[in-house]
């Protein structure tokens, strides 16, 4: 009898409804971490940049108009856009930083997109299975290189090679930083573009073949146009990454905040400015607030880019799956 009683308790004790309930709710709480963190990131970064809008002293020194419009800093001199937060008269124009970020990202895209999309077309359309099995790990390997190592390579090796080849006046410049940045975003663009092409329904390919298209016509007149929105999403997501990437541009761009149209001069990007200056900034100063404001801009920008990219990809997935069914 005693043994039986034990058996009964053993069987029924773990079936506690409370435990099931608590277990599920605990997991749900964890599942919301990602969402909550996104929210917290925005709150805590934006909070530190609030004085730019609310504190009159900070506003006078580094308000929005100070960041956007030309400023006359000295009597009798021309007004200009300038980022010199540590000078006697602190200057907080974001324009040189925007320009630098844009230059680096443009070079990165010009360098990375043809290579990544080309490689994606090859491995999705033409590569024999065995070669395809080699390309994927190679891209994963490239994605696995830490950005600080790419920055190191651009700073020590690539900059010297490029300067010797093209005779740049400045060793560290937008082209050097942009190329290294391109290496970092090739895996992003490649993976999404390849995915977009392989997920084009077989029925579409077969239809094209049925009307007499040869393999390359199927690829370039049927698959590529059908996958174009996906490839575009990959390019946009790659651009978002290029804008947010920090270590590469911090090490390889020369970090000079200048306004110029040329790509052979040094640049300073938004992300690198935060990385380079936050460590030495006085806690709670206008400079500190501006750096967090730059962080807010980066966060909002990448958030919107990612959201847009995700929505496009989700819609494509739905459309293709709907057709095959």
């Amino acid at each position, binding site marked *: 009898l005693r043994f039986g009683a034990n058996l009964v308790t053993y069987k029924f004790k773990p079936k506690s409804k409370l435990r099931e309930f608590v277990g599920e709710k605990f997991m749900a709480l964890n599942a919301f971490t990602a969402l909550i963190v996104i929210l917290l990131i925005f709150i805590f970064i934006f909070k530190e940049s609030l004085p730019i809008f609310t504190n009159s002293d900070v506003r006078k020194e580094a308000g929005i108009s100070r960041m956007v419009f030309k400023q006359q800093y000295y009597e009798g001199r021309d007004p200009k856009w300038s980022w010199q937060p540590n000078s006697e008269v602190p200057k907080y124009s974001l324009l040189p930083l925007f320009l630098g970020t844009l230059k680096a990202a443009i070079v990165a895209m010009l360098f990375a997109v043809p290579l990544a999309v080309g490689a994606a077309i090859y491995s999705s359309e033409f590569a024999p299975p065995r070669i395809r099995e080699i390309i994927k790990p190679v891209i994963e390997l490239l994605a696995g290189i*830490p950005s600080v190592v790419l920055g190191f390579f651009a700073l*020590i*090796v690539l900059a010297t090679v490029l300067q010797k080849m093209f005779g740049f006046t400045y060793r560290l410049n937008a082209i050097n930083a942009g190329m290294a940045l391109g290496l970092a975003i090739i895996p992003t663009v490649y993976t999404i573009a390849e995915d977009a092409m392989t997920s084009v329904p077989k029925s579409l390919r077969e239809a094209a073949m049925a009307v007499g298209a040869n393999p390359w016509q199927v690829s370039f007149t049927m698959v590529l146009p059908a996958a174009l929105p996906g490839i575009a999403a990959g390019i946009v997501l790659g651009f978002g990454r290029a804008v947010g990437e920090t270590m590469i541009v911090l090490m390889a761009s020369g970090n000079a905040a200048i306004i110029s149209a040329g790509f052979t001069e040094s640049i300073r990007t938004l992300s690198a400015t935060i990385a380079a200056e936050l460590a030495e900034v006085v806690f709670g100063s206008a400079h500190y607030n501006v750096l967090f404001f730059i962080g807010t801009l980066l966060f909002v920008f990448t958030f919107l880019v*990612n959201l847009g990219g995700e929505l496009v990809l989700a819609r494509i997935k739905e459309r293709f799956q709907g057709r095959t069914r």
Partner: protein
Amino acid sequence: VNGATKDAVMNSTLANLGARRKSSGTIPKSLTVLAVIIIVLMLGVILANVILGGIGIISWEFLTSPPEHGMEAGGIFPAIFGTVALVFLMVMTGVPVGVLTAIYLHEYTQPNSKITRLIRIGINNLAGVPSIVFGLFGLGFFVGFVGRGIDSALFPGAGPVWGQPAIIWAAMTLALLTLPVVIISTEEALKTIPSELKDASYALGATKLQTIARVILPRAMPGIFTGAILAISRGAGEVAPIMFTGVAYYLPYLPGKLNDQFMELGYHIYVMATQSPDVEKTRPILYGTVLVLLVLTFLLNFVAIFIRSRLRMRRIHG
């Protein structure tokens, strides 16, 4: 559309195709091959450069002794130790959250429900937040808010105890950054578990929680390991998020407490490459450090890829 128009359209399509048929697409095809070759070559050049530049200095002594003479001599042991301690704490704080998230998404919610979609949007967007923004967040939230909060509650009047850059804050910042990797990897593994196994467990009278703990989790272990390894490989290479949350260029001691600062390989590379007073003298050590970091991340990646491919085989062969 009437029959005549249809025929006309078909004819023009066929004529178009016929006209284009002459080209077999050799040029665009070879351009795509060229793209692959360029990518492989660039990867090869980077790897060769780092290996050739760094292999000479790698020795037992280099790996186990501290830096000397302002990084111009000695080894990188404190940076290796700090990196390992950092990713260990990151895994301990981040992986459980990621695993529970994946289980909740896969076992408790409908794949297309609003909640699942919302959480997924959150995860995907978290994966896209720039690492420097994570650094700002770690400083503002962990160091400033949580750390200073603990200080003012438990150690009023004393100097900063937790409200300063520390290895635990850096690890937790990295844990959030690598959370999406863990979630996606665990979900991959959950998808490979046949539903018959779960049905059998329920048929024996097990509850959902018991099924998760005794049937699903053990089977998902390889996927969870893969996620943890990928997270480590990613976290070990990130510098921007730890810059303001706990890393130091040089410390005469190893981190022993959760609120100590620490040295780290990636940051070591950054400072040596950009702020060294004598680049020529520190160059061998710089290359050696890069090689160690690269070998570490690649080894981890290989292990993860290996486990994952075995997982995929299992899914195919049942």
